């Protein structure tokens, strides 16, 4: 099963490698991992998308908690939450494709943030499936380059991950 784990970790050098090292050493999956400082610069927040049986997910959260620098760990996918991912996609945009690309970007509520004579950069945010369907919806031979941020996630309502 797919899980989204959010954690707060001391913003120290090497913190990321402690987490990624744990996943590789114990053979856990990482689908995506994002990290950035929080409003409190001494803390970083990570969102890790992983998958595994309940036993494995239980071990993953326990092992993450065991890392000395980790302050808090929550499996946000256990309850109502929101996930977003950002994608920047550079596509060929010439002739009739130019108009079609603009139309698709609008349908998916994407924004064209850069344009040249022959290309667009489209910015899209949403959950993973939305980004996947955009890619599915356009002519893939027109894709020049894509970059995705990986998932960030947050619990809904009064589920708050804070110190």
């Amino acid at each position: 099963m797919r899980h989204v784990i959010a954690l707060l970790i001391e913003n120290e050098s090497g913190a990321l490698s402690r987490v990624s090292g744990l996943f590789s050493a114990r053979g856990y999956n990482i689908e995506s991992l994002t990290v950035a400082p929080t409003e409190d610069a001494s803390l970083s927040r990570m969102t890790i998308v992983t998958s595994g049986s309940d036993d494995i997910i239980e071990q993953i959260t326990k092992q993450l908690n065991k890392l000395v620098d980790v302050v808090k760990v929550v499996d946000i996918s256990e309850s109502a939450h929101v996930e977003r991912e950002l994608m920047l996609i550079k596509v060929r945009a010439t002739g009739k494709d130019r108009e079609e690309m603009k139309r698709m970007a609008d349908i998916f509520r994407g924004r064209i943030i850069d344009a040249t004579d022959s290309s667009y950069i489209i910015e899209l945010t949403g959950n993973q499936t939305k980004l996947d369907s955009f890619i599915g919806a356009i002519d893939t031979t027109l894709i020049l380059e894509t970059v995705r941020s990986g998932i960030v996630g947050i619990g809904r309502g009064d589920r708050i991950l804070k110190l």
Partner: protein
Amino acid sequence: MVLTGAEIVIRCLQEEKVDYVFGYPGGAVLFIYDALFQQEKVRHILVRHEQAAIHAADAYARSTETVGVALVTSGPGATNAVTGIATAYCDSIPMVIISGQVPTAAIGQDAFQEVDTVGITRPCVKHNFLVKDAADIASTIKKAFHLAKTGRPGPVLVDIPKDVSAQSAEYHYPKSVEMRSYNPVVKGHQGQIKKALKLLLEAKRPMIYTGGGVILSDAAAPLTQLVRKLGMPITNTLMGLGGYPATDKQYLGMPGMHGTYEANMSMHFSDVLLAVGARFDDRVIGDPAHFAAEPRKIIHIDIDPSSISKRVKVDVPIVGDVKEVLEELARLLDDSKHEQDTASLATWWRQIDEWRSRDCMKYKNSDEIIKPQYVVEKLWEVTGGDAFITSDVGQHQMWAAQYYKFDKPRRWLNSGGLGTMGVGMPYAMGAQLAHPDAQVACVTGEASIQMNIQELSTCKQFRLPIKICNLNNRYLGMVRQWQELFHGGRYSESYMDSLPDFAKLAEAYGHIGIRVDRPADVEGALREAFSRKNDLVFLDFQIDQTENVYPMVQGGKGLTEMILSAEDL
């Protein structure tokens, strides 16, 4: 007060009441060695290889209730230390390792003797630090000691670049440590402890299984009281030997791969299993699926939540310090109105006694050739069962664990988790330094001892009168045993050729060496060795080359599928 980084390091060690630092100097730690030279409180033991420094400091910690401390230089000093650090990590031993690093400006430049020590050691330490400013040394070392000894203990490494040890900074040693990210649970959950007690008292076939956690949390006394009061059978794992007196009638011997028939059968057929500071290791429960197939309720007390329900599902988890929880359990037992099912317990004991009567530890002694089991039995007699026994890794380790009856905790020092050949002599050094008047013996094999044989020199320099009992079978015995049983007797590279004359070798280092060939001479040689209170004596026992360790549960098999002796094959 303004001090140099190096002086701060030494001040911190003094503040932590460190008696001994085990180490080896080099370029990156020259300032620290200079500061060490100019004081007398912290004494330094110069080993002959950094691996031995870590092992000796580890043994110092294992045999006392303190944190072991080692000091090594950058690059090769640090990489030589890695095996020692990993060994301590696998057995959760509290240690602080200080390593030198190239100057901060040189880090990342592929400088002379530069390795990424923090990176290399990350997976085998509880935590590690790179100190970039002398002003941070004191608070970092304070944290290192705190982390090493609290929660589930473990080694913590502090990497200090050379320029940082030379810089000056204001020195202040913090009184306490606050870490928002680190707050191990100590007290167990009351409700869970009550549930556990109820289960135990209602059990028809209770069994208690304890591991290294009991030793590490100094819980042998409360454990022993509780188990005696409950009248239940108990087994101690390889790491937990001495947690409960081995000569007591409720003790069933060690469980697991080379455990006793009665311990394994009782583990398997219990209806309530109380696991204390143990982790259901593959060497203890064999095939987890086979183990789980027999229904039983499991209560698991451990300081580390990630050890619980890792390999087997647990019914009543109790996270907390083993000692605290056992004491609470004992208090609740005193107040409890619950009746214990003593009738069922008596029936259970009859079953266990029947298993016991198989006498699985018997072996055929001989007048002609020395049997290793006999040497260990005699060692136990000659030392009055009261020595510190260290071992290396192999058959000799198992024989030592099986035939030396440990009645006290912290007397048995071995590498249980990592299984590191070469720990034996450095462990004996650490134990002897911690207990100068105690009898310390290293039960080893001719292969293992050669992995740190150079330490005979350290023993000479620091007058460490350890007794080395080399169970010399001219084989990588444990490897040979597996090849005999599982690889068609093809003894690939398991014969130890071109062995030195160990007695002469010991003499070359200035010690006493005795070669023992005949069973009749075993006891006399041991008495002679232990009567020499001030000498290191190297006893080179020429033992039966083909003796195997039994009972045995083959890898991947279930606990009840034991080979009791060669006749079972």
